């Protein structure tokens, strides 16, 4: 499965410069708050990789190779999770730089919320992309960015009041994201198999 993730990274190399450009635009336009978009944008890397696969009908090649349906879908999740994890320190560094330049305060909660939203976006949108294709999934993703981020903020506020302890709050949030992700992988596996085999 590592080979599939590496394949996607090679595929995405050409588009990474556009990601860097977007990071700069959002940072300059939205200052400190813009740094969270780095995390949300990297969560969308698997969609681009999936779009390249769809255009090439890579699924025909992949299903002839020694990969299970789970391997094929999980590789895209791993790509997304790697993306958000790697982008977290970059996002923090940019937010700290913005604070140093007097462009706005730095709150770690902002970055952690974006990390959670990125993971949740993957969990919500990838099953739909595997079932209906990237084009339909992208439309859903635009809507889900707003929904997931709003729900995440409301959830943090509510849980913050109930739990009180910040560390415990983040552990609960992480456990929730992990559970939803596991369910999402299973659903993606089922839907992708159905789509290709029908």
């Amino acid at each position: 499965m590592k080979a599939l993730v590496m394949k996607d990274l090679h595929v995405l190399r050409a588009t990474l410069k556009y990601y860097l450009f977007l990071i700069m635009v959002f940072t300059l336009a939205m200052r400190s708050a813009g740094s969270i978009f780095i995390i949300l944008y990297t969560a969308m890397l698997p969609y681009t990789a999936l779009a390249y696969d769809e255009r090439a009908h890579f699924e025909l090649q992949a299903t002839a190779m020694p990969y299970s349906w789970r391997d094929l879908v999980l590789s895209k999740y791993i790509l997304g999770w790697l993306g958000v994890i790697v982008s977290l320190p970059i996002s923090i560094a940019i937010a700290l730089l913005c604070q140093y330049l007097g462009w706005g305060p730095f709150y770690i909660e902002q970055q952690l919320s974006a990390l959670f939203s990125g993971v949740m976006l993957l969990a919500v949108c990838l099953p739909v992309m595997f079932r209906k294709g990237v084009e339909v999934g992208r439309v859903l993703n635009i809507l889900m960015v707003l929904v997931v981020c709003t729900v995440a903020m409301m959830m943090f506020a509510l849980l913050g009041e109930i739990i009180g302890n910040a560390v415990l709050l983040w552990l609960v949030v992480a456990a929730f994201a992990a559970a939803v992700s596991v369910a999402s992988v299973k659903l993606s596996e089922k839907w992708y198999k159905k789509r290709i085999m029908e």
Partner: protein
Amino acid sequence: MNALEIRGLTRSFPGFTLGPLDLNLPGGCILGLVGQNGAGKSTTIRLILNSLRRDGGSIRVLGLDNQDAAFTQLKNDIGVVLDTANFPETLTLKHIAALMRGSYTRWDEARFNELVQRFGLPENKKFRDFSRGMQQKLAIACALSHQARLLILDEATAGLDPLVRDEILDLFREFVADEEHSILISSHISSDLEKICDYIACLHQGKLLFTAEKDALLEDLALWQGSAEQLEELADEAIVAVQQQPYGVTALVKRAEMPAGAQLEKPRLDDVFLFVVKQQGKGACGK
């Protein structure tokens, strides 16, 4: 052991039904699947690879049911070339080699490099800039470089010039020199199938018209030309299929049933295919 055993295989789509299909590919042999566009060749291959749901029947590949959980790992033993090579366009040959190296447990880098050199494939060009012939050569190089025991080739030689096709057919012949190796090949180019196949199966509109040993098929059948009156004089059991020509008739006949001294020509596989498909003569020349 049979490399491939298909029994009563069926799959229905709106407006098209494949099967029921029964096929055997004995170990150490090459089975050619011939048929028009839309006859069901690619569908059959996808069903064999279990990347398409079947409605009924069974498929055993290298002795294992292809719906068994272990079939995923068995794909290490199956080299596949599809009618188009399906790699993302921005990958280069090096990236594709890395993908294969990380995917197949018995990837043979030296063999791959040898084939890449033999085919003259460029290392740093992106896949989208490969010609169709180059793309097919790369797919063939991949399929031949992980020590497979079974090759499944769907129009693998399409898009290649005759010289390269000949070279690749030689590679396939070398592959089956090992008795544990077998090939299932579908092609429109029946001259290719005639050169390398041991067995021929003819699909038409989802149905198997015949399956036969190629040499026996081409030796047992013959082409006969004459007038309509002369055709009347032939025994019914001698005639497999008839085509009206502007100046008489041409018939595909059974050599053994023809009168002594009849002027007969050895048919090409193409002739047999065209006669049988046009006549819809299921069972007429098969077993």
